[in-house]
């Protein structure tokens, strides 16, 4: 919501109901929520790559990437890792519990620019959460995109998020889906092993000028993945990544997410291109 149309206090969260939750792995859980006010639930619009501020009274607020797609309106989905007070409290919530959510915030992926091009989505670990939104959006609007690739890396089979969902995607014929784990102690893993960059061999015939890359994963992943993408001669502004920062407001005021002096991640991010990374210092 921009200044000219803003009516209500942007800092006051909207009551939302937890519809269902289940574990994605040992410390990441899936949370499906809906605005208590049904009209608001259905009219809530957002872009893949945007985030919401989740509020727990008595603890505070923190930003969380949206994992659902706006092409399936009504329900919002998050994948949340338990790391501190805030997420401990979120993990205490039970189905039908009410809590506060406000947003969406951030720029999101430039969907309109990506449309008509091929799309390669590269996710590692928790990076699957925001990129799942983009992936589902592209699959729900399949005719508007060229070839779609998913390269997914997890540390171990047990740590992999959205396992069944992505396993099922292997069967789709409108998606090139490649899954890998760094290491498999179970001996049961049916797909690739090794770091996610190993999967680049599957991208033999991409057309660099007409392909967008979307990358999200642990900080260490970016360096190696970007190096591989650059080898394919992909223009820097077509390499997109979504980044994490501390945030207290989400609306460009509190200052905590500032990068390079004046870039507020909550307004101009969290999706940045590799060109942004090169000229805005301190991004990754």
């Amino acid at each position: 919501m921009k200044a000219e149309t803003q009516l209500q206090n942007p800092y006051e969260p909207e009551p939302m109901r937890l519809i269902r939750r289940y574990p994605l792995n040992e410390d990441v859980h899936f949370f499906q929520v809906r605005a208590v006010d049904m009209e608001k639930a259905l009219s809530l619009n957002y872009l893949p790559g945007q985030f919401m501020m989740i509020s727990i009274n008595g603890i505070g607020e923190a930003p969380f990437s949206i994992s659902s797609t706006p092409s399936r309106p009504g329900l919002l989905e998050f994948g949340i890792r338990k790391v501190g007070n805030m997420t401990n409290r979120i993990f205490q919530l039970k189905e039908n519990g009410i809590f506060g959510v406000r947003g969406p915030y951030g720029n999101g992926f430039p969907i309109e620019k990506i449309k008509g091009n091929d799309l390669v989505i590269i996710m590692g670990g928790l990076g699957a959460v925001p990129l799942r939104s983009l992936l589902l959006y592209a699959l729900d609007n399949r005719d508007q995109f060229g070839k779609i690739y998913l390269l997914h890396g997890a540390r171990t089979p047990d740590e992999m998020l959205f396992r069944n969902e992505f396993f099922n995607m292997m069967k789709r014929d409108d998606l090139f889906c490649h899954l890998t784990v760094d290491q498999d102690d179970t001996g049961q893993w049916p797909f690739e092993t090794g770091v996610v960059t190993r999967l680049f061999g599957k991208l033999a015939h991409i057309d660099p000028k007409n392909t967008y890359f979307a990358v999200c994963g642990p900080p260490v992943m970016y360096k190696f993945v970007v190096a591989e993408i650059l080898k394919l001669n992909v223009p820097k502004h077509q390499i997109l990544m979504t980044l994490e920062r501390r945030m207290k407001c989400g609306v460009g005021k509190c200052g905590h997410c500032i990068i390079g002096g004046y870039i507020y991640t909550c307004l101009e991010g969290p999706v940045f291109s590799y060109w942004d990374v090169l000229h805005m210092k301190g991004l990754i």
Partner: protein
Amino acid sequence: MRAVKIKKENLFDFLEAIKPFGDLWGPVKSGDGYVLEKVTDYSNIEMSALRTRIPFKKLLFPPKFTMFKFDEKGIRSSDEELPRQVIFGLHPCDLHALLIMDNFHSLHYVDPYYRERRERTAVIGLSCFPDDRCFCKATNTHYTEKGFDLFLTDLGDFYILWIGSSLGDDMVRECPELVDEEVTHDDLEKYIAWRKKRESNFKLKLDFTGMPSIMELSYDSPLWDELGEKCLSCGACTIVCPTCPCFNVIDEVDIGGGTGERTRRWDSCMFREYSMVAGGHNFREARSERLKLRFTHKLQAFVGAFGEAACVGCGRCIGACPVDIDIQTVAQNLKGEEVKA
């Protein structure tokens, strides 16, 4: 803008007449310096005060305030009506900072807490004579035609009273008998002479020309590490800065946990936890990184984003820092000039 005159002996009567516009806040003496305080005895106002320790920002976004309260049923916004206020004695540097803050708080999203207070605030500016810490001439903020409802230029036995808004005009209409509508050629000459005298009195000569480029080239300068060694991360520089609006949000709960309030408090990019995310990763662990952020923001990045520096040359950070890390020493250091601390 419109200009009238007011005799000095009429000023207190004027301040009395505009009482209906709100509580009067002005600079008063406190220890070795000045603070903005609510004034009822006008003779306590220090007309020669150059800078209050903390600028006007404390009246528009207080160091700590309640955003809303909550209980088991949900959140409740405050229905308490804030008092109207008149801030007296802001100099051009602070008025420029006020314009920057007005712009910042309405950009992209309007901040309702700022707006609420700002809409209840009238501003009376006051001319000044620079001391050895003022460098508003270098930041080109030593004059202003905007940002005030009224502005007083001290020309000896009278003030030129500039009316900058319809609210200011309303204030003057409270007491038309106290002002003189007729500004003469003689007054103009006095005003021009005053300007010349004032401009020749700037002692601190800083040159910010090309600063963004110098900042860019200094990104890996060893200076940042040297400053990081010295910095006490006390946040004094950000607390006194009129264009530092960063805040933290902290929930206060009553025993039992069900009820409490969400509060907003001033934060500082000099504090360790400012860029720390859940799980403990800190995007600016080193003090040198935080100093770099602060000065890049003030001298380089803001120029790129808004076409002007976020520093208004008020001189508060010079003299606030126990270890002399301020805009002056940093700029001189980066430009390879002799540093006078």
